């Protein structure tokens, strides 16, 4: 099983030849905004636009809402009742920790001008030391930009929670998330949105197909493979303890995703409007496709299924939401529903990896899929595409693939190393059998999920 997995990774790694090419630089959405952030000094004339600021404040609230409580509930409902609190705790603690790290070093490393090679950002904004209340990022306050991007740095490690639920030590969760954020998230974010080497090649990743979903997915798979399967996997697991909680979380993710994608326009403008529209259409399409596939395959359309489709549709449109039109969104949504559905089975049944809540299959595969599809679907004139200026979509596809591969490679390697290091520090990142059986709520947190009488 492990060998199969290594094979898969190797085959992904087989494409380094791609790494030599480049297309015309093009700057869209977030990247645009970041570049401005990176060079505020050059825009003396910049003034604050209250409308854009209003939307960015709102978008920030929406994206925080995605993690707290959205993702927490989405994940919490999928596990057994004896582990529900531990999952909520993971998401919550990661959110807090990531915020502090973002403040201390993350923002600086990810989004401020860095070294010439384009590998990592600068150190001048550590602890936000030079931040003035009046600094602007484009036409909204830099404080808002820091906050908006912080919510991305919060949700990305929180996504990985799905890989290790029900069997990991809480201390390992904290250590892993902290290191991962600095070692994986910040660099990739810099490459794509901070003006780094991928941005220079013209990679398109409007709201985080590479930065958020590919990194989280690849890391999740690696971590899950290293951590091992839950007892009972795959044949005698208990079903999701609270599908209504799953749906509640998914609905919040959907609503919050409007802030994620439309907020990545960094303004309340036509780009934000189109991003919201295509985001929604992709989510709706993927949900229905997943539902019908499941209906056909199992005889019954399930609630957990349809909302998983939603998340797949949302993850997949994310990188593309600044470049495609409505028709493109429908195609992306339909692909997401189909491909991610089968990816779930593939990871669990074929690879035999207990990526427990399907982070790799839904987020990873979805994010990569969208990142690749955007090259064609975003092509100007094709199916309502809006955004691509490269000479032909094939060139763009190559750049997109480079982006995915680079992110995956870093994620896999860094995750492997981080886990090894943490294992040494914590005496193994997995709880004892007894604790796993007892449930993490009691074993790790001393609390009970439900005391209904």
């Amino acid at each position, binding site marked *: 099983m492990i060998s199969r997995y290594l094979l898969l990774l190797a085959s992904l790694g087989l494409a380094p030849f791609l790494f030599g090419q480049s297309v015309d630089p093009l700057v869209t959405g977030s990247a645009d905004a970041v570049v401005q952030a990176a060079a505020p000094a050059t825009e003396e004339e910049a003034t604050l636009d209250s409308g854009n600021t209003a939307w960015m404040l709102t978008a920030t609230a929406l994206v925080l809402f995605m993690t707290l409580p959205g993702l927490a509930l989405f994940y919490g409902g999928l596990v057994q009742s004896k582990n529900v609190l531990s999952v909520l705790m993971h998401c919550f603690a990661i959110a807090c920790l990531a915020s502090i790290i973002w403040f201390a070093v993350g923002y600086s490393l990810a989004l401020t001008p860095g070294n010439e090679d384009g590998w990592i950002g600068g150190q001048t904004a550590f602890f936000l030391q030079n931040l003035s209340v009046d600094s602007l990022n484009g036409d909204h306050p830099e404080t808002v930009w820091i906050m908006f991007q912080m919510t991305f740095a919060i949700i990305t490690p929180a996504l990985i929670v799905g890989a290790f639920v029900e069997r990991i030590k809480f201390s390992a969760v904290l250590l892993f998330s902290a290191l991962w954020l600095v070692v994986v998230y910040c660099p990739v974010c810099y490459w794509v949105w901070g003006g780094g080497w991928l941005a220079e090649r013209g990679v398109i990743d409007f709201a985080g197909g590479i930065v958020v979903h590919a990194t989280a997915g690849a890391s999740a798979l690696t971590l899950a493979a290293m951590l091992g399967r839950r007892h009972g996997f795959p044949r*005698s697991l208990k079903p999701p303890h609270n599908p209504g909680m799953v749906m509640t979380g998914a609905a919040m993710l959907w609503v919050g995703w409007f802030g994620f994608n439309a907020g990545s326009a960094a303004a309340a403008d036509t780009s934000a409007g189109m991003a919201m529209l295509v985001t929604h259409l992709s989510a709706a399409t993927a949900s229905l496709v997943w539902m019908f596939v499941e209906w056909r395959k199992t005889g*019954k359309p399930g609630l957990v299924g349809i909302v998983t489709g939603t998340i797949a549709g949302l993850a997949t449109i994310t990188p593309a939401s600044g470049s495609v039109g409505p028709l493109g969104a429908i195609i992306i949504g339909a692909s997401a529903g189909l491909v991610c559905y089968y990816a*779930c*089975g593939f990871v*669990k*049944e074929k690879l035999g990896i207990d990526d427990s809540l*399907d982070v790799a299959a839904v987020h990873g595969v979805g994010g990569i899929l969208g990142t690749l599809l955007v090259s064609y679907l975003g092509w100007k004139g094709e199916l309502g595409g809006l955004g691509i200026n490269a000479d032909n979509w094939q060139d763009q596809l190559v750049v997109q693939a480079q982006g995915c591969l680079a992110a995956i490679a870093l994620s896999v390697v860094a995750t492997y190393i981080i886990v090894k290091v943490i294992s040494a520090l914590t005496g193994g990142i997995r709880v004892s059998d007894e604790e796993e059986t007892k449930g993490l709520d009691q074993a790790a947190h001393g609390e009970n999920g439900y005391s209904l009488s």
Partner: protein
Amino acid sequence: MKLIKSIIKPFKLEDVKDALSEIGIEGMTVIEAKGFGRQKGHTEIYRGSEYTIDFLPKVVIEVAVPDDIADKVIETIVKAAKTEKIGDGKIFVIPVEQAVRIRTGEQGEVAL
């Protein structure tokens, strides 16, 4: 006195209760349970993975009755709870040596 302990399908509870009321049984105690038996469980499928549910929801009804009406009670329950599909459940009859009504301290059959 006998304690008649019946394991039935949950949706039959109302019917059994009504049938017992009709023959004059005024009290019973009901407990939720999970049953394992010839009626095998089922699988639920989430995201393409199968989850096996071994235990099926059942309801246990306990009625304490005087010896002489035990048979009638059993008959009544069987009639009301039967669907003739596998998994209908069982009735067990257990001896009761003493019964007490807490409110009054009354003992024996009057306490039922």
